[in-house]
């Protein structure tokens, strides 16, 4: 299945705007990437795609490379010193590493680096030099990531306070390229409770203006004036990243060891077992169907066995096998330890039990769990949920007692460190946002809805409170005159590639400090509920799992 949404837009920009734009029939090219650009490229293009457009080999710029002097090179790189130095080095000696250079920067190249290129021999070999304005990872069709888990510390660690402004500038630029790529110039809003949201929103507004000067298409179109970009901090909803989720994708990433989106398992085929590695991404149609489903609904065994003899079905069959393994692995882990835990977690998160009775004695329900044989991190998650349930935090001696009962003194820093995100742990004042009443969950162990979903729905219905979510500047009105609009109305979409132009408005959510799978799922659910009128995109500095979240918290102080 062809990727849709963000992946399609970025894939199209890279394949057509970069690679195909310098294609010459009969001539192959080398493609040189650095770490970030390789991640971007890999998330939306396959080897076959770029082979079809004349690229025969992809090289990492930071590695020592053999010269291939008969071929020209495309450099798709970030405009940072390391990469620029490597580019210059390739053309320093009299024998050039490649025949010529076509340079594409992911975003704006700073003046000093640009001048450095101009001063060196490579300038003679450069046949193309462009800034493509794609400095983010299209992780899924409606999810983007800045692929930088280290920014969690830059934003929230008291040790790294001096890095904060630099982090804000870098993130702002990356988000501006997202808007640029989507031709959006949204109204920028931020969650008032946290200072970094305002700073970031302000910086983004500035960058959007700069980008719009070069890309007049940004914000054009009758509905685009309604597009919004919301900036929110991780501390705004500390429950979602910590709760055990029972939907397929969230559960798999939480319970199993999935690195770089690759699931490895042993097949028990005929004869000895073999190791298989499968990439979980949107090219796997079955994954796209299953990923947001509740594990109980993902009934893979019942799905028809395609026992046709034609070889082309063998790919589908192996996909079924993979997801069957994945589901079984999740369920095995769940049954082993988590059955009780999930029920307690849901009660704490909702403040009520499955039949709606308010929780009276939360301490009573969590103590047996804390004394049981579950992992330290699972205990910490329960304690955190207990504290959040208390809304205003708990007295310090209670916290000490809990840590003692649970026997998790080594990891107890995680709990106190979360205060750096603005969350209440030890008797503080701030409250979590009010929740919407919902009647749509059918599973006892899946009653919790991420807070961001409420925000998404309110924003779309124009009911999002302006005091809590102020606009950086007033929402833009269409500045072109009526006549100009109607003259262009029938035509403005014609020179655009089909994927890029959704004509409806977009709601883009950026969460500072990591986004959880349940929150990603909310973007799709809310989009579907608008019947295609709105498209909700969500993204963050990185995609987190409960484990990675707790690990990052540990390192904050």
């Amino acid at each position: 299945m062809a990727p849709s949404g963000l992946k399609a837009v970025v894939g199209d920009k890279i394949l057509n705007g970069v690679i195909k734009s310098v294609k010459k029939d009969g001539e192959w090219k080398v493609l040189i990437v650095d770490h970030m650009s390789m991640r971007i490229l890999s998330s939306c293009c396959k080897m076959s795609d770029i082979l079809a457009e004349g690229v025969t080999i992809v090289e990492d710029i930071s590695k020592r490379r053999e010269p291939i002097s008969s071929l020209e090179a495309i450099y798709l790189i970030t405009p940072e010193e390391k990469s620029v130095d490597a580019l210059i080095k390739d053309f320093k000696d009299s024998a050039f590493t490649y025949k010529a250079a076509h340079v594409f920067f992911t975003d704006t190249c700073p003046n000093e680096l640009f001048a450095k290129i101009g001063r060196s021999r490579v300038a003679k070999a450069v046949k193309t030099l462009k800034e493509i304005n794609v400095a983010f990872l299209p992780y899924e069709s409606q999810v983007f990531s800045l692929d930088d888990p280290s920014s969690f510390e830059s934003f929230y660690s008291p040790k790294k306070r001096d890095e904060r402004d630099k982090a804000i500038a870098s993130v702002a630029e990356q988000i501006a390229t997202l808007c640029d790529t989507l031709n959006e110039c949204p109204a920028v809003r931020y969650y008032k409770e946290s200072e970094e949201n305002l700073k970031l929103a302000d910086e983004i507004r500035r960058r959007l203006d700069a980008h719009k000067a070069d890309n007049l298409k940004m914000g054009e179109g009758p509905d685009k004036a309604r597009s919004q970009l919301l900036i929110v901090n991780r501390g705004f909803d500390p429950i979602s990243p910590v709760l055990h989720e029972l939907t397929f994708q969230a559960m798999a990433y939480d319970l199993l060891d999935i690195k770089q989106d690759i699931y490895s398992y042993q097949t028990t085929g005929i004869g000895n077992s073999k190791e298989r590695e499968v990439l979980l991404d949107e090219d796997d149609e079955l994954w796209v169907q299953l990923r947001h489903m509740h594990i109980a609904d993902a009934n893979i065994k019942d799905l028809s066995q395609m026992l046709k003899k034609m070889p082309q079905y063998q790919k589908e069959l192996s996909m079924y096998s993979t997801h069957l393994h994945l589901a079984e692995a999740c369920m095995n882990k769940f049954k082993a330890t988590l059955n009780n835990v999930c029920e307690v977690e849901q009660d704490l998160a909702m403040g009520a039990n499955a039949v709606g009775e308010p929780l009276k004695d939360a301490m009573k329900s969590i103590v047996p769990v804390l004394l049981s044989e579950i992992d330290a991190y699972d205990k910490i998650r329960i304690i955190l949920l207990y504290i959040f349930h208390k809304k205003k935090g708990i007295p310090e001696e209670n916290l000490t007692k809990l840590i003692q009962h649970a026997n998790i003194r080594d990891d107890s820093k995680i709990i106190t460190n979360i205060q750096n995100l603005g969350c209440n742990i030890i008797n503080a004042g701030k409250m979590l946002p009010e929740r919407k009443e919902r009647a749509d969950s059918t599973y006892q162990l899946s009653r919790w809805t991420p807070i961001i979903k409420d925000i998404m729905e309110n924003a779309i219905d124009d009911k999002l409170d302006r005091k809590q979510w102020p606009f950086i500047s007033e929402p833009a009105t269409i500045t072109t005159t009526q006549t100009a609009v109607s003259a262009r109305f029938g035509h403005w979409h014609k020179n655009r590639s089909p994927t890029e132009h959704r004509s409806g408005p977009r709601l883009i959510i950026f969460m500072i400090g990591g986004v959880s799978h349940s929150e990603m799922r909310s973007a799709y659910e809310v989009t579907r509920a608008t019947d295609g009128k709105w498209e909700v995109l969500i993204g963050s500095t990185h995609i987190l799992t409960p484990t990675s979240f707790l690990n990052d918290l540990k390192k904050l102080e």
Partner: protein
Amino acid sequence: MRDRLQHLHRVKTDSEGFSTVELNSLSELEPADPDQDLDGVLNEAQQIRLEIQQIQNDISELQDVNYQTINRTSFPSVTKRDSNTIGADIKRRGEAVLQQLHLMNDLRGELEARRGPSDPAVRIARTQYHCLSNALREVMFSYNDTEMSHREACKRHIKRQMEVVGREISEEELEEMMEGEELCVFSVHMEGKTIHSALMQLQSRQQELLELETRIQSIQELFLDVAVLVEEQGAAVENIEQSVQKAEVIVHDGTTQLENASTSDKNNPLKRMFCGCFPCYHS
């Protein structure tokens, strides 16, 4: 996108005392050592690519011929190639390309032994081999689709003609007929041009279906071989991040060499190939 080439030209300065003239002539020099291995790989790849294109052309021709045979009311006069000839050519070409691909893989292996696994010519050979294997598989699917479409068209035609003859035919009877069972329908008293024409059509459709089945049968093995070819390489080759990361840094000492060897063995496609549900392998 922002084009900054003009900006670069404005900023450009002569470096290290070279004059513009000298710098220009430097960059226009022929590369010191043309890499014959690399040229060989790319030429070989191009040959295979052209052959695959030929197969695609054959498939297009077959589509035309199939269409003509159903939509003409009189017997075709054989001026161009008929479907059996084209089918045989496709089979022959497919098998030849498969052979060439095996040879290309052998060449890659030989280059790898001589120049090491991270050598660009070797890696280029690997990606070309992968790309062409997929292209061959795609073209075989395309052939299969063409024949299957024709099959359905013939069946529809038979059904219609049977109605003309006054005898409706069920799916099972249709399937039986395609396996060569005779149709015992035609009463002697049925006469007339329409009936006669319909009967002729029916006979030729039945004949065609039988020939089609034969063609498909004979190409089964080629299908299987191509499937194995692609499966052997694994899906991981498509992932760009993995391709880039697997290209190891130039070997510096013995320990790194050992590391490379064990990594490449782990990636040995034969060791990671079949999951238990590979249907054809076990049928």
